[in-house]
């Protein structure tokens, strides 16, 4: 199947759906119905194709797979290639994007009634952009997707959002645009340095240390806003509160991962010296993000805002893990991003369910929902516990690996990060208690209906994946690990101070705790193996 342009198909098939939706004519109701059906079937086909990517993926090599390459711009000295390919890191982000698009279309089936056609077009365009970002292997191609994603998101927030949607849409757009234009300059500088816009070439290039710092900072401006890291996170709560449910799902599920993905794909391997130099900065910002935003979350009265702040805290863990730069921590960071993509998306959908019924997100308006909506309470509980990081859920695996890997680098940072688990439990349980338990005091709450079949279908895959990732993470860890090991080895070799000197101690920890974590024995064996393998690996 590898002779098929599978990756291009996954990337651009949604645009075919857009074409079909655009050509549908007739009465509004018919057009809306057609738009929904076309969007759902297109996104389903794309999702199935993206699963084929996973099936065909060869986890034994860190090299890019499904590579497609064609000339795009080729004038004089300036060449841009259409170059796609994925490795273990990007594979699951693509799956996450395609899955969440399907769920978004489903979840907006009834809640969006105005301009349905435009809504579905926006989501399909968004899907193309998201998949494109994760599969692009040419800098300019990457940037086209990376910035292009702003257009559909801007429209989604601005047209179908809440009362302050205009303010939020502008804030979102301009904030992230300012970050990304600086990274455009950095991309151009990389091009001028390497003479090629190919990401693979740039990854193997050695940049002078001084230049590294500037370029690192320029990329950081872009990715830190996307993550978002404290103190540039302020766009996130505003945007989440005003965005429609499905918009929040994509935003939290995929767009926040662009920052982390950018760090792991560009900043770390291309600028190892600068990354090491700025690690204390990232650690400090991450620790502040984790602790500060957790407390802020505790004080929120709006459910979406609370989850938005919890996202900032969780992403703080991710950035910390990435820059700890041990194999466990980076693997943990990737898993944590995937897990957060599922869990926060699910939590926004959970909020969306009651919002559709009562049209308020004010926590005080709810209470005692368990009596009327037992299934809902159960679903909410599962995702709430996953967000806290309960063992057996995906949240635990990521957090645990991050803490484990960070502990080797900095015990203080690990300690600060560990408070996230405690604080996270505080605000999530507090939220859950206020919404689900207690006595029903209002009449409109008594009239609430439990999850419909469509809503159950939306939550089922998320729930299954959260548990799967928690109970048997090696399905996901095996493809990720090869690429991450390669990356960590490359960075450490470039910096000539491997942080993995204490390999023996690491073995023991790995051997004992993953078993407790519910990680399958085969995963433990794999984790054991990477350390000797690491010693023999040299950078390209």
């Amino acid at each position, binding site marked *: 199947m590898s002779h098929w342009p599978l990756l291009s198909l996954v990337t651009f098939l949604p645009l075919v759906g857009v074409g079909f939706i655009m050509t549908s004519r007739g009465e509004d109701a018919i057009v809306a119905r057609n738009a929904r059906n076309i969007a759902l079937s297109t996104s389903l086909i794309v999702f199935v194709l993206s699963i084929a990517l996973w099936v065909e993926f060869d986890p034994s090599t860190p090299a890019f797979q499904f590579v497609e390459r064609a000339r795009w711009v080729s*004038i004089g000295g300036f060449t841009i290639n259409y170059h796609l390919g994925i490795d273990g890191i990007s594979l699951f982000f693509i799956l996450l994007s395609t899955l969440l698009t399907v769920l978004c279309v489903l979840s907006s089936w009834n809640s969006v009634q105005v301009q349905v056609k435009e809504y579905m077009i926006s989501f399909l365009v968004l899907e193309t952009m998201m998949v494109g970002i994760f599969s692009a292997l040419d800098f*300019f191609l990457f*940037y086209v997707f990376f910035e*292009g994603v702003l*257009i559909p998101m801007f429209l989604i927030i601005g047209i179908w959002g809440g009362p302050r949607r205009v303010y939020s*849409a502008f804030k979102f757009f301009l904030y992230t645009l300012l970050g990304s*234009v600086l990274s455009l300059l950095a991309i151009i500088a990389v091009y001028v340095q390497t003479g090629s816009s190919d990401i693979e070439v740039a990854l193997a290039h050695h940049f002078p240390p001084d230049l590294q710092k500037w370029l690192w900072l320029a990329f950081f401006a872009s990715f830190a806003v996307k993550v978002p890291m404290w103190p540039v996170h302020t766009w996130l709560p505003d945007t989440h509160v005003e965005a429609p449910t499905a918009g929040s799902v994509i935003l939290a599920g995929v767009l926040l991962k662009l920052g982390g993905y950018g760090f792991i794909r560009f900043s770390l391997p291309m600028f190892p010296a600068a990354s090491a130099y700025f690690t204390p900065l990232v650690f400090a910002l991450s620790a502040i993000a984790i602790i500060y935003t957790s407390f802020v979350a505790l004080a929120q009265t709006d459910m979406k805002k609370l989850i938005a702040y919890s996202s900032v805290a969780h992403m703080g863990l991710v950035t910390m893990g990435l820059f700890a730069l041990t194999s466990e921590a980076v693997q943990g960071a990737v898993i944590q991003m995937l897990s957060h993509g599922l869990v926060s998306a699910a939590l926004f959908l959970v909020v969306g369910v009651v919002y559709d019924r009562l049209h308020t997100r004010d926590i005080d308006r709810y209470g005692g929902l368990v009596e009327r909506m037992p299934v809902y309470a159960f679903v909410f509980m599962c995702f709430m516990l996953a967000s806290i990081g309960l063992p057996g859920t995906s949240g635990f695996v990521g957090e645990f690996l991050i803490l484990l890997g960070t502990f080797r680098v900095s015990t203080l940072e690990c300690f600060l990060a560990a408070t996230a688990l405690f604080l996270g439990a505080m605000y999530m349980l507090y939220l859950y208690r206020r919404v689900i338990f207690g006595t029903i005091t209002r009449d409109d709450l008594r009239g609430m209906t439990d999850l419909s079949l469509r809503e159950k279908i939306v939550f089922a895959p998320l729930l299954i994946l959260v548990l799967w990732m928690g109970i048997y993470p090696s399905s996901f860890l095996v493809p990720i690990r090869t690429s991450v090991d390669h990356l960590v080895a490359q960075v450490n070799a470039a910096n000539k101070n491997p942080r993995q000197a204490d390999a023996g101690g690491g073995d023991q920890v790995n051997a004992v705790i993953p078993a407790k974590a519910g990680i399958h024995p085969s995963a433990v064996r794999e984790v054991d193996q990477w350390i000797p393998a690491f010693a023999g690996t040299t950078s390209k």
Partner: protein
Amino acid sequence: MPIVAFPGLAPAVPEVVLVCAAMALLIIGVLRGEGSSKLVSWLSVAVLIATLVIAGLLGGERQIGFYGMFINDAFAVFMKALVLLGSAVTIIMGLRYNEEHQIARFEFPVLVLLATAGMMVMISANDLITLYLGLELQSLALYVVASFDRDSVRSTEAGLKYFVLGALASGMLLYGASLIYGFTGTTSFANIAGLFGGGAKPSAGLIIGMVFVAVGLAFKCSAVPFHMWTPDVYEGAPTPVTAFFSVAPKIAAVALFVRFLVEPLGGLLAEWRQIIVFLSVASMLLGAVAAIAQTNIKRLMAYSSIGHVGYALIGLAAATPNGIRGVLVYMAIYLFMNIGTWTVILCMRQRGQMLEGISDLSGLGRSQPGLALALAIFMFALAGIPPTAGFFSKLYIFLAAIEANLVGLAVIGVVTSVVGAFYYLRIVKVMYFDEPVGAFDRPIAPELKWVLVVTAVLTMFFILMPDPVVGGAEVAAKSLFLR
């Protein structure tokens, strides 16, 4: 009496054809009287296209005519093609507007033809005299066109303002040219360029002359701080005329600016680069900031065009073949984005009345989705957001700036582009996020519809086939550096 050899006319054939045709059309118009406007307009379009074909057939071979005063090279062909396209499309765009405002006179297309001839001479200037001739031929025609709606106070005011300030700029340019002649003893670009060959230190008089000429040219392409006339003239002139002003004369002025600084004065790079950097930064800043407060879309587009000149000048500041290529690509894409936007503005009419307020676009996304989609594409393109063509125009400019080590300029450029994105987005916001206030008149005139579709498609799908434009620009830019 010595026999003077007949000057080499070959490189100027397109201009000759254009001027002769303009005369012929003038005669046709006079003979057939008032009702001939439509005929003359379409014939003018045909003439412009024929000129384009002739210019294309002539090719980008470097040819010099008129005893070295006139040059034709790949750069000239590229820029002339843009100017001719811009002029032809604006004549088409003005057809219906002029009829409805009772200003459909046959002089309009003829004046546009004459202005275009002036622009082509400017682009091909190889001598200070030719430069001034072309510039004045263009300007005089433009002054008249600006006040073409002669019964409207705003239009006559615009024309007068343009004339007074334009004459001042021409005066400065002429003064600078005379200084250059006085200190070098030559008006020929080739001879001036030759002065820098031996590494001799340029005289102060030459530098001062260069500054004056640069001021005059900055005025013509409305770079800050010589932009004051732009918003008023753009607002006052009839809309098709404004559309014309915002593309063809601007492209010609930028072309002349580029040729004048790169070819004869390439040796003064260190001196003029500071000027260009200042003009560029000031234009980008003002274009971004001043447009935010505008409520009239024509004024907004005026500030937008000031900002865009600032970006184009980044490429000139780089002064490398890649920088000039950036300028050319920028102007080409700017042509399409701008013509498209002005076409939408021409469609903004209710019950026969033209509307110019940004708030009049409210809810266009629901009342006229096609028109709104086109304008949204143009706005995202003007803001430089991928995947629209506008992104590529900025990409090539910033690429050149980084290569030439003008990092500070590039950073200011991207930051102002974010500020500028705000007001482009505001238009998208008004169209899509606000409630509809009332639909515009339908149907849209067929010729406008065609212009709209073509420009929107080109702006949106430039990404698929950037090579023809970029390739042409590459060859054109290199031709400037052959000397």
